[in-house]
C-alpha cells in the first residue's frame, strides 16, 4: 500500500513538475517583456483602454487631495470592465488620494460635464475620458 501511494505520487510528480517549471519560466518571460507602465498599471490595463488616464491622474492630483469618479453611459472604446470596475480600481491605484464624491478633482468617464459647472478639464483623453478640476 505504501509503495503504491509513493509510486502514484512519483508518477504524478514526474508529469507535473516539468510543466510547472515551464509555466513559471513562461510567466517570468512574459513579465519581463512588459514595460514599466504596463507592470505598474497591472489589472488597470483591463479596466481602461488608455493607460494615460492613470498616469495623468497620479501626476495631476496632489497626493493629499481627494477625487471623485463620475461615470456616464459606456462609450465605444471602453472595455467590458470600465463602467463597473473603474471606481474601485482608481480608489486602489490613486491612494493616498481619497475617494470623495464632493472632491475638487473629478475623474470623468463619459460623464455629464454640465453637472459640474465651473469645472475645467485639465486633461482630456479619448472615449469621453477626462480629468476635471472644480474651482476651490
Amino acid at each position, binding site marked *: 500500500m*505504501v509503495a503504491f501511494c509513493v509510486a502514484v*505520487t512519483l508518477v*504524478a510528480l514526474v508529469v507535473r513538475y516539468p510543466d510547472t517549471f515551464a509555466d513559471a519560466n513562461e510567466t517570468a518571460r512574459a*513579465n519581463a517583456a512588459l514595460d514599466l507602465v504596463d507592470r*505598474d498599471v497591472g489589472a488597470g490595463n483591463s479596466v481602461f483602454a488608455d493607460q494615460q488616464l492613470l498616469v495623468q491622474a497620479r501626476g495631476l492630483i496632489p497626493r493629499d487631495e481627494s477625487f471623485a469618479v463620475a461615470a456616464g453611459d459606456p462609450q465605444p472604446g471602453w472595455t467590458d470592465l470600465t463602467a463597473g470596475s473603474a471606481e474601485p480600481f482608481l480608489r486602489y491605484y490613486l491612494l493616498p488620494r481619497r475617494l470623495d464624491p464632493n472632491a475638487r478633482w473629478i475623474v470623468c468617464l463619459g460623464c455629464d460635464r454640465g453637472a459640474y459647472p465651473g469645472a475645467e478639464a485639465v486633461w482630456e483623453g479619448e472615449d469621453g475620458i477626462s480629468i476635471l478640476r472644480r474651482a476651490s
Partner: protein
Amino acid sequence: MTVRALIGLAALNGAYAVLGVTLLWALRGLPRWADVLRLAGLGYLLGLATFGIVWTQLLVVGVPFGGWGVVLSLVGGTAAAAAAGIVLHRPRPRGFGDPDRHTSGPALLVTACGIALAGLLLEAFFRSGRLQSLQAYDAWAFWVPKAKAIYYFGGLDHGLFTTLANPTYPPIVPILDAAAFHAMGSTDVITFHLQYWFLVVGATAALAGCLYRHVPPWLLWPPLLLVLVVPRVASGLLIPQADVLVDVLFVVGVLLLALWLRDGRGWRLAAAGVLLAGAGLTKREGLFFAAAALAGTFAASFARRRAAWPRLLAVAGLVAVAALPWRLWYSTQGIGGEAPSDAGAGGSVDRMLDALRLSFDVLFDTTLWSVVPVVALVAVGAALAWGDRRVAAFLAVVLGLVFLGGAWVTFAFRELPITAEEALNPIVRYTGAVVLLAAVATPLLLASVWRSGSEASS
C-alpha cells in the same frame, strides 16, 4: 523594482525568522545548530504570525503603524523571547550534527534530491514573481488598498476599512503587506509579490523541517513536491491574497497538533496555538479551521483528557482572545453582515446535497489537485487499518470537518451559485486548505503504516 526594495524585503523576512527562531529557542531550546536550521521555516511562520497577531491588537487600540514601529516591534519581540529563553536556562546551540542520529547514505541522497528539486522550483517561482504586476481582483479591490491605508495613514483608517469590499476580513495580510511596503521604501506593488514568495519558501521549509524527523525522506519529499506543482496550488502561490497564508498557518498548526498527540511535547501545542491564532486573524474561515483542528485534537486526546484538555483549552483561549479585538473593532464601526443568509435550517435538502456534491467534485478534480486527495484518502485508510490509528483518526476528522465546512459555505450563503467557477463561488480556493493538509498528512500516515509493517516483519 530596485535592489533596495529586494534587500528591504529580505531583511524584513529574515527578521520574522529571527523572531520566530528565538521564540522556538525559548519554548523548547535548540541544542544544536542543525535544530536551528531544521526548524528555521517553522520559526519564520511563528515570527510572521506573532508579528501579525500583535500588530492587529495594536492597530485596534490605535497604535500608529510606521517603519520604526515595525523595527521596534521585531527587535522588542526578539529581545523578549531571548530574555525568556535566558530565564528558562535554555542552552545556546552548540555544534552542528546530532551525534545520536545516524542518517543512511540513500536517505541523505533522497533528502539532497528533494531539497534540490524544491530549490529549483522556488527559484523559478522567484523569477516569475519578481516582475509580476498586480492582477488579481480581490488583491486590488481590497487587500492592497487596506495595506496602502495602513502604510499611508498609519492605522485602520475608518473611511477605507469600513467601505472597501469585505470589511470584516481580518487584517493580518494588510499588516504584512504594509510592513513589506515600509521595508521596500514604497508601495511597490510589483516587488511585493516576493513577500508571498518568502512565505512559500518559509512554508516549504516549515513543513519539511517539522516532518524531517518523523518520516523517512522518500515518504516526505514526493507529496511535498507534488503539492507545490499541482495546477491550482502552483498558479495561486504568489497571488497577494490571504488564501495561501491561512492555509499554511492552519496546516502547519494541525501538523504540530498531530505530532503533539504522539509525543505530548508542550512546545508543539504552544506553537500550534500561535499559528492557529494567526489563521483566525488572516481570513474568516481561519477561525473555523482553528476550531476544526482543536475539536479534532480534543477528540483524539479523550483517553488522556485530564492532562491534555486543560492545555488544549488554553490554546483555544489564545485563539479566541487573539480573534476577539478585531471582531469588536469592526462591530463598533457598524460593520455587520458576516453571517450567511441560511445559517440555520432555512436551506433546502436539495441545496445541501448539491453543495456536498460540488465540494466532492472539486476535491477530486485531478485537473486542479492532481492525485493529492486520492493518495491522501488511501493513506488515511491504510493508517486506520495498519498504522497510527489515533493520528490517522485525528487527521481524518480534521480533513472531514474542513471539507464539510466548505460544503456548508455553499449551502448557507444562498447567493453563491452551485458552481466551481472561482469568480462566483469560493469553493475551489477554500478546498486548497483540505488539499494542502492532505498532502502534509500523507507522509505522516504512510510512515506509520511502513513502520508497523517493518515491526511486524522483524
